[in-house]
């Protein structure tokens, strides 16, 4: 396994995990392709860590460039890079014909039978394009980051454990005020509570998660609030989003999280005299209900 092949595998794995399976499939080398695909599967499963991208940002841009350049310019670029010592970018080129011609020209130039071609002028422009691409990439992530910044300025008391994904953890005490601010602030305007659910994360933690959406600005936010099992009390936000009334009743019904300030917190799906919180992981089904015995084993199913 040469180092070139390993680097190529690492690049293909990263491309594949980013969604670009076509470049993986286009690789000529069967062994490299197979190993790359196997590694992609393993990383997705979680048994192997994603390998780091083995090229510097300059080479990244050069491997992206071939799409915009003509074939001759591409050959010229690769020849120049190869002559400068960077054979990896030559090997990383997808087009077999271009690669072959570039390598042939490098050999000829080194032998002296051909002259070194000029660098195509578009390189400098394309690097600028690429830097703009990078800025664009950051902008896509921006709404959540901006919202997060605004929240951090206004309410610095949040348990900050979700930053790469799209959720924020809050402490339960001040949640009602935060909710009112999220609803009414003109640049946020989260006027729609999409979904509210509770989840038992094990280890004595219950979470209540809110998916918020703004119909005007069309941005999303997920809020999570973590409470211990023994003292599961969260302020109710049903004044802010009216649907929270029924969502919170359902979470109370299934998980036992109490929402303080709720006008009518009672069970909604189960009968009002049911005992226990079914969706908790340590829930035991009752033996009887009003004298009816709950059967445990299904007889006669064979």
């Amino acid at each position, binding site marked *: 396994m040469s180092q070139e092949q390993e680097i190529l595998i690492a690049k293909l794995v990263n491309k594949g995990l980013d*969604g670009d*399976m076509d470049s993986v499939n286009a690789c000529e080398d069967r062994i490299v392709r197979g190993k790359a695909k196997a590694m992609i599967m393993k990383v*997705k*499963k*979680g048994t192997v860590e994603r390998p780091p991208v083995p090229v510097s940002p300059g080479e990244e841009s050069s491997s992206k460039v071939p799409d915009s350049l003509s074939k001759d310019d591409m050959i010229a670029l690769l020849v120049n890079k190869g002559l400068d010592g960077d054979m990896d970018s030559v090997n990383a080129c997808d087009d077999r014909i271009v690669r072959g011609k570039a390598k042939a020209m490098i050999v000829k130039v080194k032998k002296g039978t051909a002259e070194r071609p000029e660098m195509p002028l578009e390189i400098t422009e394309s690097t600028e394009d690429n830097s703009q691409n990078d800025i664009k990439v950051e902008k896509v992530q921006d709404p959540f980051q901006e919202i997060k910044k605004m929240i951090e300025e206004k309410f610095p008391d949040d348990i900050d454990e979700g930053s790469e*994904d799209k959720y924020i953890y809050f402490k339960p005490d001040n949640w009602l005020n935060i909710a009112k601010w999220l609803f009414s602030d003109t640049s946020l305007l989260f*006027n*729609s*509570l*999409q*979904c509210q*659910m509770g*989840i*038992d994360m094990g280890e004595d933690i219950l979470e209540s*998660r809110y*998916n918020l959406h703004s*119909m005007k600005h*069309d941005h999303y936010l*997920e809020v999570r609030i973590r409470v211990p099992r023994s003292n599961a009390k969260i302020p109710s936000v049903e004044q802010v*989003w*009216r*649907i929270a*009334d*029924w969502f919170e009743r359902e979470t109370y019904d*299934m998980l036992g999280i109490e929402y303080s300030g709720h006008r009518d917190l009672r*069970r*909604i*799906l*189960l*009968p009002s005299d049911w005992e226990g919180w*079914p*969706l908790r992981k340590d829930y035991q089904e009752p033996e009887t209900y009003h004298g009816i015995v709950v059967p445990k084993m299904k007889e006669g199913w064979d």
Partner: protein
Amino acid sequence: MGLVHGEEMVLNIGPQHPATHGVLRLQVKTDGEVVSQITPYMGYLHRCFEKHCENVTYEQVIPYTDRCDYLSSMSMNFGYVVAMERLMEIKVNERVEHIRVVMAELQRIASHLLCTGVFGLDLGAFTPFLWALRDRERILDLFEMTCGARLLYNYMWIGGLSHDIPTGFIESTLKFLDEFEPNIDELENILAHNKILVERSADIGIMPKDIAISYGVTGPNLRASGVNWDLRKNDPYSIYDRFEFDIPIGQGMKGTVGDCWDRFYVRIQEMRESVKIIRQAISKMPKDGDVHQNLPKKIRPPKGSIYARTETPRGDLGYYIESDGSAIPYRLKMRSPAFTALSVMDEIAAGWLLSDVLAILGSLDIVLGEIDR
């Protein structure tokens, strides 16, 4: 109506009642015929869907999703499959995408036919109900041709479909669409523009925009209140961004914007748009492609969570899936559109007569299977 007050009477509509679309109990406090408060009691159809999902594998969840909203099972499958494919980053091939769109839109037509027919039935028009069911039978025949089932399909799998469409399906579908389009006009004439039905449903149960958004009402109910929001256009999933169709919005043609007639009429217009989408999808469908091509060998999503929404005939259906890396979901929550639609009942139906309560309930198009899960 407000001058002579009698005693307040507490009446129970349901749980066994011909007009409640399922097993629902509405406790109604009335003063004579005027309703002062409505409290819905549900849970009669609760089958512990979310707890079941924590004990079966991801593929085995799909038949359970069918049974939640049994009148539009394809859409329930579709929502789950879209969420799982986003979580696992699977991309399905073009043929699968087109077939999924065709099935989802056929299911939308079938569900809207049933809803409009039942709305007429609740108000006493017996015949349009049977005309609507006649057309729905033909759609169910198409589904039976494909996957063998008429109501609960288990058709859309994670990464593909369970069966490819058989030969003759496309011709039958196009033939059905040609014969169905005049039937929409017939249904509209006998039902939507009937003076008595307009009297019974216009200006009744008005749902203003801000109440609709605050109560989380989505789908045709929200569009009838004048809000231009359809997930197929505003937050496209699958290949919906490639098709051209309009979004019908309530305009208060016979009364105020957001009344029962608007909700009813928006559904009739949506049927026409669905016919357009199906025709475009069939014409663009690739001829070859294997529907089982992208089925993953083992479904083990990466650790994490996802919330994905799709547009079902009743509104937007959300699946929140939390995965811990194993083959069994850690937690799966289904956010059903009918749940939010029922919650707005007390707000918009108080102050009307008893007959109007049933008209409003019919116009909200709820299915108890999806509310109770």
